[in-house]
């Protein structure tokens, strides 16, 4: 049964369903003494006993289904976290590769004594770094890389981003993946929504700050005016204003945030969609 709980569940509930239907119909027919054995009590007793046994086994099956559901959800979240990790790793590798190439050129120019060319080369290189990289200091390397990659993505799609960070985040190793998954999801949602809009400049605002007890993360983006729904709907599993098959993002964000003892709220209206995540500092740092 542990091998495939879904098959066992299908079988149990189908058998239960038919036995109950048979019993119901049989009682109806018995009222008119139609199509019955001379002594039907034995068969009915046997049928009742089987239904009772199936009900008892159903308890085990339901428990297994519940555990499977939890495991599936866990896997979904792990996949999400690893997707972000892969993205971060790609950025690290790209920079590593670039630096190696640039150092080779620098060494080559140095050995040839071409100092003027070397100076021009280094000036161009620094300009490209200033232009291409974003200097983000949140206090957490993982979040810095995540924000850098999302800002680079936004830039490549001509999406204006207003970034304001007025806190120095601190987070323990065991919670960092959850935090990356939470922020990664919210940022992905914002960028995807804005990308689908017609207006040429639809800024996304990212604001991180802290109060005495909590870290606050606020992401605001423009949204189509026809889209707004009741706030609680956005957290339902499978709900999405995008195409079918989407709608896991905010559901997962809510789950992860609540696991960290925090809360998420959304404010859709006036063509703006605002997500505010509040996570207690002591939980994130512990």
């Amino acid at each position, binding site marked *: 049964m542990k091998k495939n709980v879904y098959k066992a569940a*299908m079988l149990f509930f189908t058998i239960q369903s038919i036995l109950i239907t*048979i019993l119901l119909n049989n009682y109806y027919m018995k009222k008119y003494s139609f*199509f019955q054995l001379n002594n039907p009590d034995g068969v009915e007793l046997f049928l009742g006993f089987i239904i009772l046994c199936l009900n008892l086994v159903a308890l085990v099956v339901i428990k297994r289904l519940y555990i499977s559901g939890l495991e599936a959800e866990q896997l979904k979240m792990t996949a999400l976290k690893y997707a972000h990790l892969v993205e971060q790793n790609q950025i690290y590798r790209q920079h590593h590769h670039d630096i190696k190439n640039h150092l080779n050129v620098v060494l080559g120019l140095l050995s040839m004594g071409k100092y003027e060319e070397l100076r021009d080369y280094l000036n161009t290189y620094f300009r490209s770094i200033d232009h291409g990289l974003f200097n983000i200091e949140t206090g957490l390397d993982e979040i810095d890389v995540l924000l850098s990659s999302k800002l680079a993505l936004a830039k490549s799609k001509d999406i204006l981003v207003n970034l304001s960070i007025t806190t120095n985040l601190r987070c323990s190793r065991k919670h960092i993946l959850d935090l990356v998954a939470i922020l990664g999801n919210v940022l992905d949602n914002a960028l995807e929504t804005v990308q689908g809009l017609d207006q040429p400049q639809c800024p996304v605002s990212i604001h991180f700050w802290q109060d005495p007890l909590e870290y606050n993360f606020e992401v605001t983006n423009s949204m189509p005016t026809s889209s707004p729904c009741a706030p609680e709907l956005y957290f339902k599993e499978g709900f999405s204003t995008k195409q079918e098959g989407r709608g896991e993002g905010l559901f997962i964000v809510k789950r992860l945030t609540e696991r960290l003892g925090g809360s998420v709220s959304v404010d859709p209206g006036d063509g703006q969609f605002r997500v505010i995540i509040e996570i207690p500092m002591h939980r994130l740092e512990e």
Partner: protein
Amino acid sequence: MSEGMVKTIIFSIPEAIVVVLLAWCISGRNFKWTSLMASGIIFGTISPWIRLATGSYILNIIVSSLVLIVLLKLFGQHDILEAVTVALMAVSLYLAMEFLNVKTIQVLTGVDPIRMEQNLILRTLWFLPQILITVAVALVIRYFVSRQLFKLNTSKRKG
């Protein structure tokens, strides 16, 4: 033509065909009309014999369900778990609809079910809507199951 044979042709075979149709629709497989009709006709022909041999409603349904499982396995090439689940679900659904149908007619007309069973015309009038409703339910199930399978296949291809 004997009365038993008439009843088999008028009631048992169409009833068996719609139950098999219901099972195929629940399984979401594409119809193979020849297999469906063949298994329906065999099932309908065997049913009166099962009825005679068992002599009890409960045993009759249990044995009929087993026969349907075997027929689905042979003609539909369903795997055993699929054959068991779709056969039992189909029989369960059909019986529930039959119960509702008989009870509704009894409440509306006040005719005793025993009289309905014995009178060929009354039985046909009770039987016909039941068959039509079952076919309609089967097609509705097919539409939803097919849609779900289509979605599942599409998301698998995307993933």
